[in-house]
């Protein structure tokens, strides 16, 4: 029986009402009395020396308050990188400065050069056009291979080269890896690109800041997934402000997908300018600006080699990847191709020898950082593509080859630094075979062929490491932050509850799902529990929402805090009923003395906590409010199996996704409706990557895909309905809810399924020469591949 309340119930979302009636409160909806507007003058070339910036004419334009350039920020820190990666020789990565406004040079199209603050946005924009720039254009490095050549133009003159780091994970002894390959019966090699994407949350970034001269307090409203992280980075590293004088608010946020994790120049700028101009300052990105200033995603070029023995067991895996960092190191950029990518190369399989090599490269392009899945889609894509290619070369069934190599015993220590706590990959694959109706495929293919179409089936698995992360471990690996989370449970006198959480909801439905947990633990109605998030002045602390961590990490903190509440409430109840607190049971919102009919209601206890006339004041304090910080013991490991069916039009090369099925193991599930939705959204983005999306620069570093005219976003008619199943559940063994996280799975698991399906379709049509087509698998690429 599906539950209609508490953990496991498909509760409709309470936040929907405001969004459906136009009553949401997004950052651009916030206007502060007396605000001025800033427009950033951005570089329209990829690489240039700034010989001069003449703002005199612009400064005289109507409405202009002040014009800022890099010179105004010489005493201010740059944007920090939050993860120091150490290379294969133990040397820290090259870490160039990342100024708020360009200093001396511009390094990518969109690099901000000057900022015009004016009474209206139009005036700011008009005045920016009157700024006279003297830019001396330099050759741009765009291609990673070219950037690493001796004598290549350097993106940063002060660095020794464009190599940020050269990193290795797993078996570091090259000879040992080579020996495993030499002894193998079969080696499959694949070279592929995981193309650059733009995250494109539908709400562009916005920042509004105000400064109070009276109290010397700052308030920054910003489109962020993690307001506390922004406050910390901005105060400690950029502007040198006292943290306790800065409030950062991230109200309703219109999607993030990773790109709203990072601390951006514009946030620091408006905060700085609000004081400098003694006026609130607002910035709203246009979509065109978002394309050249939001951190972008993916952009890996990889060679992967898989060695198998004569029985088709995987015996060794070696990868060589170049990862594009863009022109500067965005907040978590350095961790994505390393600790979020290399560590996942074991996938769901027993491969005893793995070596992952990654070179991170600076180029004259927009910085690259985490985008939904962050490193794990790149790992999954190459691994699941090479396995599919191996199956084809060996003439074995791709599902069977995967099953044969699955990890089946847990906990499992991978050769690439992780310990999977639990999973059931065969069980999940069983679910997929049903959800995808694999047995019905042959009939569907025959039907497609009758219509002159080629039909292909692509299957793959994925695993991801979520719930980032044990702070001591990530600290050893170079993270410059802890990755716990925090929650405060504040019980009011009348029994209603406010839960202040460090996680931030920007589509994930925390306001609905989190109360389901607290309400179930206490046995009260969910409507009595309210979630408060996104405001550093209201919540204790929080590392925010990304990496599918909200429930696994912040939810765990919330459970711990609620447990503390229950313990204290039991003491109060025991006092009221003159019993021992060890005899008190809490069920359905009533405290009873075990084995008696004595009971008091939740509301009686909460009222007593705040009106402590009859209260054990010598033992406990009045009030009922508890905070917990939760630092996870391990990552969580959601895993699954996905299947895609495509039709390919042999005349045009056009690919249509006809069916898509996903079977995921997310451990325990709090709200299945929300989980379904998260998977749907991820699949939509994954199909987008596989078939449509690509961020393209020309050889001069010009961004060719700077708007929705050129960057193909998936639309409703590009995707089918999806069949999703998460009944395969092996609960996480180390967090109190047994949850694993579901936010990124769809985007991680779906691209290889689509590409595997396209290759399958072409092979079914006799085009067995086609081993691979890079994403996006556009009609022209398919057509060219078909021609051989």
């Amino acid at each position, binding site marked *: 029986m599906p539950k209609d309340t508490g953990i496991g119930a498909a509760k409709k979302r309470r936040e929907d009402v405001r969004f459906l009636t136009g009553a949401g409160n997004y950052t651009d909806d916030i206007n502060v009395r007396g605000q001025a507007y800033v427009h950033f003058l951005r570089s329209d070339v990829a690489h240039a020396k700034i010989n001069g910036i003449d703002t005199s004419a612009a400064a005289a334009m109507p409405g202009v308050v002040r014009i800022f350039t890099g010179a105004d920020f010489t005493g201010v820190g740059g944007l920090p990188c939050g993860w120091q990666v150490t290379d294969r020789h133990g040397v820290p990565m090259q870490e160039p400065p990342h100024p708020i406004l360009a200093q001396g040079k511009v390094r990518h199209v969109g690099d901000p050069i000057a900022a015009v603050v004016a009474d209206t946005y139009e005036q700011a924009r008009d005045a920016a056009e009157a700024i006279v720039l003297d830019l001396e254009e330099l050759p741009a490095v765009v291609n990673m291979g070219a950037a690493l050549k001796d004598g290549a133009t350097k993106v940063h003159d002060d660095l020794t080269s464009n190599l940020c780091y050269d990193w290795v994970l797993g078996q570091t002894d090259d000879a040992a890896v080579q020996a495993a390959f030499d002894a193998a019966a079969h080696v499959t090699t694949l070279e592929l690109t995981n193309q650059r994407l733009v995250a494109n949350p539908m709400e562009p970034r916005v920042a509004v800041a105000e400064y109070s001269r009276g109290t010397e307090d700052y308030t920054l409203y910003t489109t962020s997934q993690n307001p506390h992280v922004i406050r910390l980075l901005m105060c400690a590293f950029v502007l040198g402000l006292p943290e306790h004088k800065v409030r950062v608010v991230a109200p*309703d946020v219109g999607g993030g997908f990773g790109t709203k994790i990072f601390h951006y120049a514009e946030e620091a700028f408006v905060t700085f300018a609000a004081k400098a101009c003694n006026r609130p300052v607002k910035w709203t990105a246009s979509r065109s600006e978002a394309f050249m200033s939001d951190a972008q995603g993916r952009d890996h070029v990889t060679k992967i080699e898989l060695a198998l023995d004569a029985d088709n067991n995987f015996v060794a895996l070696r990868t060589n990847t170049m990862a594009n960092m863009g022109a500067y190191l965005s907040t978590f950029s350095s961790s994505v191709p390393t600790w979020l990518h290399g560590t996942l190369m074991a996938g769901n399989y027993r491969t005893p020898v793995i070596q992952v090599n990654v070179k991170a490269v600076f180029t004259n392009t927009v910085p690259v950082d985490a985008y939904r899945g962050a490193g794990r889609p790149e790992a999954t894509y190459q691994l699941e593509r090479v396995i599919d290619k191996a199956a084809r070369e060996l003439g074995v069934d791709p599902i069977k080859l995967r099953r044969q190599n699955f990890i089946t015993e847990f906990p499992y220590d991978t050769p690439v630094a992780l310990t999977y706590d639990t999973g059931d990959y065969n069980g999940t694959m069983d679910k997929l075979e049903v959800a995808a109706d694999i047995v019905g495929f042959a009939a569907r293919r025959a039907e497609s062929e009758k219509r002159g179409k080629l039909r292909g089936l692509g299957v793959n698995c994925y695993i991801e490491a979520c719930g980032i992360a044990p702070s001591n471990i990530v600290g050893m690996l170079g993270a410059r932050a802890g990755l716990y989370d925090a929650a405060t449970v504040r019980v009011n006198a009348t029994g209603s509850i406010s839960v202040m959480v460090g996680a931030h909801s920007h589509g994930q439905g925390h306001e609905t799902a989190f109360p389901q947990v607290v309400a179930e633990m206490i046995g009260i109605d969910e409507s009595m529990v309210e979630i408060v998030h996104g405001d550093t002045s209201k919540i204790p602390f929080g590392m925010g929402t990304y990496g599918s961590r909200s429930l696994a990490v912040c939810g765990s903190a919330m459970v711990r805090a609620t447990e503390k509440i229950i313990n204290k409430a039991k003491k109060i109840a025991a006092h009221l009923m003159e019993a021992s607190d060890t005899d008190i049971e809490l069920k359905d919102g009533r405290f009873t003395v075990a084995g008696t009919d004595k009971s008091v209601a939740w509301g009686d206890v909460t009222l007593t906590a705040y009106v402590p006339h009859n209260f054990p004041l010598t033992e406990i304090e009045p009030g009922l409010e508890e905070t917990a910080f939760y630092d996870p013991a391990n990552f969580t490991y959601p895993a699954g199996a996905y299947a895609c069916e495509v039709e390919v039009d042999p005349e045009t090369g056009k690919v249509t996704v006809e069916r898509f099925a996903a079977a995921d193991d997310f451990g325990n599930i709090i709200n299945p409706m929300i989980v379904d939705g998260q998977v749907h959204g*991820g699949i939509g983005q994954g199909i987008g990557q596989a078939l449509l999306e690509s961020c393209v620069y020309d050889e001069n570093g010009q961004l060719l895909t700077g*708007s929705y005219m050129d960057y193909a976003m998936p639309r409703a008619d590009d995707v089918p309905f999806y069949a999703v199943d998460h009944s395969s559940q092996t609960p996480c063994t180390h967090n109190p809810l047994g949850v694993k996280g579901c936010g990124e799975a769809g985007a991680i698991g779906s691209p290889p399924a689509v590409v595997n399906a396209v290759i399958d379709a072409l092979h079914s049509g006799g085009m067995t020469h086609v081993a691979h087509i890079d994403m996006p698998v556009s009609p022209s690429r398919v057509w060219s591949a078909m021609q051989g």
Partner: protein
Amino acid sequence: MPQVSMTVNGKATSGTVEGRTLLSGYLRDHLGLTGTHVGCDTSQCGACVVHVNGAAVKSCAILALEADGADVATIEGQANADGSLNVIQQAFQDHHGLQCGFCTPGMVMSAAALLKENPKPTERDVREYLEGNICRCTGYHNIVKAIMAASGQDVTAIAAE
């Protein structure tokens, strides 16, 4: 600067705008009706869809002055008179047709226009009609389902209940 007046959600409004002020800007900045969202600058995303004289229009694609004298409806005016969600809004909630909510006002306004001209749309009809509305969160599954449900069709057989 020119004067503009129009009826918005049944109320008379007027204001002084620049010639270049877009209808979306008039609604958001002059009237404070911030439910109409702006997600792009190339008239591609549909977050800004409103009804002008009954037709779905991208409010970022017309000037406020072009709507002078028009009858405009926005997301703020869609709920039933008693404040409860209308059929389309309710279907979006029932079928989890929104996540971050940013595309949602435009989706609801487009859906209303679709159902007016095609009261029982097929899946294909819905998907094709939504060409001009981008959602980055939902993968469209539940949006299509919600709109079909709002049209009174039984959607229980659709995959992934």
